[in-house]
């Protein structure tokens, strides 16, 4: 936890006295939550904060349905203890909204990627993080970055196409 100025330190201390154990910044909003530090971030988001875009699929970092960003990096929120989170959490809800889609989401809609859609929050977060770090990924880059995310419905061909569309849009093409 980074304390940068006294007012905030005092505020945190007071929250702690009130029984809050974890401070979490999600989609720009600060939350003080009274949970065990070892609770996975996923379940804090879903059951404590009611942020249900990140999904539970496996709980053991095998499927990617729970993918969120911590400071822009894609992580499996089912396998990150909330007490270990340093930095800002962004979920699919914070990436873009139906009225203001992120470029990756817009590409996902354009290519009509989703079938059941349950994996797609995680797929989109993985893709957004990939494009953040590599604005012009090759097919191999895409495969490498996206292969940790399972899609049981088999939407991989469309995911591939949508990532490419998003990349070219973001590059101003």
């Amino acid at each position, binding site marked *: 936890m980074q304390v940068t100025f006294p007012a905030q330190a005092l505020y945190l201390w007071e929250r702690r006295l009130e029984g809050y154990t974890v401070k979490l910044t999600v989609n720009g909003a600060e939350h003080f939550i009274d949970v065990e530090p070892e609770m996975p971030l996923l379940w804090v988001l879903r059951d404590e904060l009611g942020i249900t875009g990140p999904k539970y*699929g496996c709980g053991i970092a095998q*499927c990617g349905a729970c993918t969120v960003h911590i400071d822009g990096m894609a992580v499996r929120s089912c396998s990150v203890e909330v007490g270990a989170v340093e930095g800002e959490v962004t979920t699919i809800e914070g990436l873009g909204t*139906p009225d203001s889609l992120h470029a990756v989401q817009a590409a*996902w809609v354009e290519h*009509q990627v*989703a079938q059941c*859609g349950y994996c797609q929050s995680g797929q989109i977060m993985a893709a957004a993080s990939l494009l953040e770090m590599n604005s012009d990924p090759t097919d191999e880059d895409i495969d490498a970055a996206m292969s940790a995310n399972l899609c049981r419905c088999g939407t991989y061909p469309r995911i591939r196409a949508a990532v490419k569309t998003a990349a070219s849009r973001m590059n101003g093409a």
Partner: protein
Amino acid sequence: MGRLKTIGRRAFLVGSAAVVGGVAFGFYLYKKPVENPLLEDLAEGAAALTPYVRVDADGVTLITPRADKGQGAYSVQAAMIAEELDVELDQIRVDPGVPSPAYWNTALAAEAVPFAATDQGAMATAARGTVGAVMKIMGMQITGGSSTVADGFEKLRIAGAVARETLKAAAAQKTGVAVARLRTQGGAVILPDGREIPYQELASEASQIAPVTEVALRQPAQWRLIGKPMLRVDMVAKSTGTLDYGIDARLDGMVHAAVVLNPRQGGALNSFDASAAKGMRGVKKIVPVTGGVGVIADNTWRAFQAAAAVECDWGPAVFAPEMADHWAELEQAFDTDPDSQGRDDGDVENALGETPLTAEYRAPYLAHAPLEPINAVVLIKDGRVDVWTGTQVPRFTQNNVAAIAGVEPEQVHIHAQMMGGSFGHRLEDEVARRCTELAMEMQGVPVKLTFSREQDFGHDYLRPAAIARMRGAVAEGTVKTLDLAVSAPSVLASQMGERQGMAMPGPDSSISQALWDQPYGIENYRVTAHRARNMAPVSSWRSVGASQNAFFHEGFLSELITAAGGDQLDQRIALCTDDVSRRVLQTVGDMSNWGRDLGPNRGRGVAFCMSFGTPVAEVVEVTSTPEGIRIDNVFVATDVGRVIDPVNFENLVQGGVVFGLGHAMNCEITIADGGIEQTNFHEYEGMRMYQCPRITVKALEQNSHIRGIGEPPVPPAAPALASAIFDATGVRLREMPFNKFVDFV
């Protein structure tokens, strides 16, 4: 299309009924009135209409009994209504309806009859009609068998057309303008002066007048939506994390629950010690449930943790405990009287001769494992039960929950939730039953039960394991004799019999599904199905019996064609007896440029399967690399009569291919100590992105019947892959998963 219209008029009685705040259009059952959920508040005698579309102050609502588990069923159905009713897709709301026997699914029932889907003879048609009646009586309301499009194609368009004409009649009455001078567009009736009356404002007038039932359906050339790419109504929500699935349901005061069930599947709980779990943070209650223990807590993770901390003494295995026993049972079943013999052409025994070619093929148990684990929310309060769950069988769930809660089925209200996949998983209602047991202990409090992935894997009802024994003979460069015997447990007996308590007399057609009815003219051709004793509980899995049977049939057919020295595609085309299927085979040949030189270390294979009346041919191209097999290309040709939405269609076909290939490559469920060994996706991976080939899809529209596409792309994938691997490496694969014998990149 003229023909469809006639059928529509003859078989369905269309009508309308006033409902609270508006009017509903739908169909009368022609046998007897059936309770109608939407019309509860109406007087006796009005309650015989099955509503498909409702117009009221909220606008136009599609009332659909057909679950959407990811296959786009809602959008496709909305399009069929909208095509005739002249509304835009985004103006249509969807109401998943409430379970009612008034919705019956004729297209699915037709598949249960032992006539080939290509057989439109009088006998076959009559028999399908009979089964339709049986299903109606049992009051089934099921999404499955790729039947959503087939079932709704006429009814939904007719309902839309009747609604449109009735709304126009209402507008004419209201304005004094003749009907002939009125148009409809964008959810409104347009007057000659350009004024628009939204349907909402005509709803109550429309409910007062007799519906206009003499309507002509629009010709395909006039279609504005059907056959054109459409933006699925759920696409934005599914791309922004704003679509709520069952697992996301939230109710005031809701608590979260987990279960730990006997790892010996179906076994009993002898006793348990919850002393360690009881004191864990957030735990509210720990109670026994059927076959295990349930923990109710204030958070799902806390419930999972506490469930893991409960010490249980489990009862013994209830079926053969080891996988070897299961294979032995399947082997023994070959010595029992056949369950059915769907085909016996020519003189197989004589034609086989002294030295027939023989082979044994095997397919393992498989899990459904949709990405959303099964879950339900149940609230029991003052004798009323509310259930929120993603289900393909709301009617069964209603009855089963009622029995557990000790109330009448009418007191159970099912709120169908969006599903994160199913593949047949949600044709079962285990989770709703267990959740009801927990909710009984928490009267007045909504309880959400989420199966952990491990519990979901360990208690899935599996795709049956199966064995095929085949013999064949070739002469004059072609296949003369094919004798195929298959042994599998009965899905019907397990799923409908054991778990839903229904008598399932007669043979189980799923054991020989897609074996006996393939459109091949082989001189001596016999298909015999043996029913193995049920061991692990089994269930319908995307494409049901066809999922393993196409591998058997097409795999061995490839061996015979190789033995005959023939070309895999040419021979299939030559043997094919059905025009639609032959065109599908020819098309996949053209698409893949069959016969072109592939270069070194490469191979191709073709397979065909007709399932659920839909013929699908697939060509798979692979490269044998030093690291293993890489799947490069898949070409798919099919014919469903009419493609409603080409984008969704392509997505479903590609997904089916990925599903078929992925499981064939590396998935199996094995049994040890009476339970399922695999616990999570690291032991059941399927296909990942880096393994996914380019998949090219082409749909013909010459089939005279409208067919579904959710399942039929799955069966040909495995045999086409096996054939391609043989072509590239000379390794013949007769057992799935293939990664037991070859590596994949």
